[in-house]
C-alpha cells in the first residue's frame, strides 16, 4: 500500500486550503486513488497561519492526519519554521522563494524545490492565483499526479469567470517546475 502524506502551509488568504482541495480532488475524483483532506480549524485559521493536510493512498485512508509528511509545501516563513522539521528524510520540501528563506538545515536527503509563485501570479495580473501557480509547480516537481488530473481538479474548483486565469496560473507554475527539474532555474533563497 502506498501512502503519501502532504502538508500545505502558509498565511490565511494565500489559498492554502484550496491547494489541498485541488490535490485531494485530483487524486480521488480525476484519478482512481483515495484522499482525505483535513485543515487546521480554530483561531489560527483566521488571518495568521493556515495549514491543510492531505493523505493520498491507493487504498481507503484510515488514519486521517499527516504525521510525517512526504511532501511539505510552505508559503510563509512561520510555516517553514513550524513544519519543516517534520518532513521525512526521503521527502520533498517546496517553498515560495520570495516568502521563505530556507534558513535551517533540513534533513539530509530532503529534496528542496522553490518557485516565486506570488511574483509569477502578479505577472499574470492577479496575485490571488499564487496558490494555483504553486499547484502547477507542485504537479511538475512531485510527479505524483497526472497534470491532466490536477488541471481538471483546478477547473472543477474555481468559479466559471476565473477558469481561464487559473488555467494560465497552473500552466505557469507547471512550466516553471519543469524548468527547475531540468536545472535551468536555481533561485532558491538559501543562506
Amino acid at each position: 500500500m502506498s501512502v503519501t502524506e502532504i502538508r500545505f502551509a502558509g498565511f490565511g488568504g494565500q489559498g492554502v486550503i484550496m491547494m489541498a482541495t485541488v490535490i485531494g480532488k485530483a487524486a480521488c475524483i480525476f484519478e482512481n486513488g483515495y484522499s482525505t483532506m483535513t485543515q487546521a480549524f480554530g483561531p489560527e485559521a483566521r488571518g495568521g497561519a493556515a495549514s491543510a493536510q492531505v493523505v493520498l493512498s491507493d487504498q481507503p485512508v484510515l488514519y486521517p492526519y499527516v504525521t510525517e509528511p512526504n511532501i511539505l509545501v510552505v508559503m510563509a516563513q512561520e510555516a517553514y519554521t513550524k513544519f519543516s522539521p517534520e518532513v521525512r528524510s526521503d521527502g520533498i520540501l517546496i517553498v515560495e522563494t520570495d516568502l521563505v528563506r530556507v534558513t535551517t538545515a533540513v534533513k539530509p536527503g530532503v529534496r528542496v524545490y522553490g518557485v516565486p509563485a506570488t511574483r509569477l501570479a502578479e505577472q499574470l495580473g492577479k496575485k490571488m492565483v499564487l496558490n494555483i501557480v504553486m499547484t502547477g509547480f507542485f504537479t511538475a516537481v512531485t510527479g505524483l499526479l497526472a497534470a491532466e488530473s490536477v488541471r481538471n481538479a483546478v477547473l472543477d474548483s474555481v468559479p466559471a469567470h476565473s477558469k481561464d486565469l487559473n488555467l494560465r496560473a497552473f500552466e505557469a507554475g507547471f512550466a516553471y517546475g519543469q524548468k527547475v527539474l531540468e536545472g535551468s532555474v536555481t533561485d532558491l533563497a538559501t543562506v
Partner: protein
Amino acid sequence: MTVHADPKGVLTGTHFIDGDHACCEGALAAGARFASGYPITPSTEVVERFAARIPSVGGVFIQMEDELAASIALQGAVWGGAKAFTVTSGPGFSLMMEHIGYALMTETPCVFVDVQRGGPSTGLPTMPAQGDMMQCRWGSHGDYEVIALAPNSPQECFDLTIRAFNLAEKYRLPVMFMMDECVGHMTEKVVIPPADQIEITPRRLTKQAPDEFLGYKADEDLVPDIAKAGDGYRFHVTGLTHNEKGYPSMTVKTQDKLIHRLQDKILQNADDISINEEVDLDAADVVVVAYGITSRVAMKAIQMVRDSGQKLGNRKLRIGMFRLITPWPFPDKKIRALAGRIRGFVVPELNLGQMSREVERASGGLAKTIAVTHAGGTVHSPEEIAEAILEAAR
C-alpha cells in the same frame, strides 16, 4: 414501504466535500425541508449549507434564538407535515435534552445531529471527541430507547443521514446522528446517486377516517400512524402521559403501557434497526469494538499488529473488528455471543469509557474488556490501540 427520493433535493454526482456538507446533502436527499438551528462549531457547516441550498430546493431554514427554541421549532414543522432536523454540538446538545424527551414522548419523527467536540461545557470547540454517546442514550429524563448512528466518513455522513431520517419515520422517534469533529471536518470523495436509487421511508400517515382516528393507537410493530395538521384530523400532542387518543391520562396503568411500548418498539425491532460492520470475526482471538473516526484509527492499529506478525502460541494472532454503525440500540446479543469465544475486547473511544461499559455489560464476564480511553482533542495514536490488542491477547 419506501419511495424514491424527491430529485429536487438530490445533488447527484461525485463530490469532494466534508462530513458536515455531506450530512446536509443526506438530509436534503432524505426529504428534509425544514431545519431550525442555533449554529455551533463544529456543526455549523451543516446548516450553513442547508441555508444556502434550501431556497432553491423549496423549504425553510430558521436560525432560532437558542437551542431550546431550535429543538422545538423543528417538532412543530414535523406536525405540520415536514421532515425536519436540527444540528448542534455538545453544549447545544445539553440544552436540547428536554425537547428530545418531548419528541420521544410525543413520537415525533425527526433527526438530531450532534457533531461531537471535546467537553464538558464549551470544552474544545474545534477538536474531536466522542463524549456524548451516553448523553444521546440517557440525557433526557425518564425511561426510553433511542436509535443512534455513528458515521466514520463523509460518504457515510451522506448515506447514514438518509437512514437516520428513514428510521425516524418508520419508528417515530428522534434519531440521534452522532458525528465527531474529525468526520465532520474531513473532506473526502462523496458519491451521491440518482434520486431513483435512493430509498425513502415516507411518513406513516393514517388511512383511517378522521372520526375513527386514534393518534396513539399502535400498529403491530408497536408504532402508531400519524395525522398531519390541516388534513381534517383532530389530534392532541402532549408530553404528559397520554392514552391512545393522545389525551393526558396520568394513571399507573397508562404509564406502564405507554412507556413499555416506547421501549419495546425499538427493542423488538432491533434486528431491523441495528447495523454493524463485522470484519474477520470468525475465529478471532481479540475483537476491537469501535465507532466513528476511532474505527478507522483502530483498523490501522489492527493492520499494524498483523503486519508485525504477532503470534498466539504457534499461529498468527487473529484480530477482528466490530464497528458500531448504530451504537444504540446496543447489539447485546452479538457482543455476548462473541464474548463466549474470544479472549478479549478492545474498545477505543474518544472519551473516558462510555460504550466500553456496554461491551463489558453485554459480555457478562465471558471475556475481558480493555477500554482505550482518550479525553479528546485529536484521535488516538494507532500504537496505543495496538498495545491494547496485544494486552487483550495475553
